């Protein structure tokens, strides 16, 4: 799958495109987790993501664990209405720092 990465204002923005499911979760994991070794805060931008299954959640949980272990912050932003809803219904939203969109997340980091 396509994964966009760029440094913006000292923040590493990680933007998966399309879907994170059992077929793509491993690719996302391999691309995302090493970012926490670089020291810059990590922002996962969901704006280009239209579907996430529990496989994607597992990667996010591993990222949260890596964030805690390294002291590098992790923020999620730009969730679609549907993705935001499942995170809230499931209660998994409480496990992450979630902002409305990339701009809001970068403003907070600034």
């Amino acid at each position, binding site marked *: 799958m396509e994964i966009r990465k760029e440094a913006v204002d000292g923040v590493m923005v990680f933007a998966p495109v399309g879907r994170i*499911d*059992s077929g793509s*979760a491993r690719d996302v994991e391999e691309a995302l987790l090493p970012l926490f070794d670089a020291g810059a805060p990590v922002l996962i931008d969901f704006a280009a993501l*239209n*579907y*996430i*299954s*529990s*496989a994607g*959640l*597992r990667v996010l*949980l*591993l990222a949260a*664990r890596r964030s805690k272990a390294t002291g590098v912050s992790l923020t999620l932003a730009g969730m679609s209405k*549907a*993705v935001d809803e*499942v*995170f809230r*219904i*499931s209660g*998994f939203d409480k496990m992450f720092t979630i902002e409305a969109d990339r701009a809001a997340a970068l403003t907070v980091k600034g």
Partner: protein
Amino acid sequence: MALLEVMDRNEIAARRSAIMVCASERLDTAGDDGAAVISALQAEIGRQLAEHDVAIGYTSALPGAEMLFAEEILVRSGELHLVLPCPIEIFVEQYVAPFGGNWVSRFRAVQAAATRVEVSCEEQLAGDEIQQRFNNQMLQGMARVHAERIGGTARLLLAWSPAAPAEAGSPADFMDQWPELEQLSLIDLDALRDGLGFGGHAADIPAAGRLAIGTSPLVVRAIFFADMATYSSMSDEQVPLLWDFLAEVQQDVEAAAKPPILINTWGDAVHAAAETALDLADYATALVGRIAATELARFGLKNRPRFRVALHAGPVYVGLHPLTGRSMIYGHHVNRAARIEAVAAAGEAYASQPFVALLQVEMDALEHEARMLGTPYHRPYRVEYVGLLDLPKKFGREAIYRLCAVAMPTAAA
């Protein structure tokens, strides 16, 4: 005992209950920390069951969270369904006994009290990761079929160790195969141990109980067997006409369904395989449907041919046949599919419980995805329970379902 027999008997009582599947890392609780971990797990599992009003549970009852879950379901007078990855005595010997303590006696107790105990793989490949993955797929699928039947929902309770390898058959792998985040509850075993002041990570399992990671020779496939019910009564003059008829059918089938990844024939018999149950359901219903609908007179056939079709699923071996050089799948589940074909009704596609379970998983995943994307999804198939049928050649009994294609809604004029 077939799933639908159990559901009919308990349907009224269970109608308002959620169904929960529990999967977990196996836990070595022999150390000083064992009792504290067990107690904390028990409390959390009880809280989850209460929160979601669960009275029906599906699990394998591995030592640890799964066994605790099974016991808690029974304490609540719930309905417990055990699905094991191998024959019961092998399961006890390879999966339960290595953990010592009183786990074996506890397993025997939940086994005796369970509403149903199913074995997903008869092969004695204890520790095989694909066999374990298939068992997880059966747990998920059977719970989903049950949930649909009673108008409920299936939920996954996963006790996992984030530090453990996320290989096929592991709880992490189970999570990867579960689409709905909103129907997922997690117990982080590493965090639980940390919270109790213990080091290490939860999945410190004895060597005898470890999955054989990355070494499985098996793959899970949907399996198709068919033969023509009327072939032996056809005259030699009719047979070439039959092949012409089937060539016409094949053109229509190719347009309607993805071709199987493997197909072999001998005479009137057809054997095929696909990666998903949906792919094979599409192929089977297209074949049966086109044979029933293709005009007969044009080909000079006196009688309409009718295939007996069997659909099954399970872990199989893949290889090249030494005599033909062609790809083949083999193993217990291939043999079982052939036995199911022998009892199928002519002109119909009969599916085993494992096939129906996989099909349900796949359709539920597509429906969830469509819901999230805001796009319509209409389930293409439903099943009708036929019965618990005796299979030939001492293959025991199999719960059999008739696979029925559902007409897609037409666009409004």
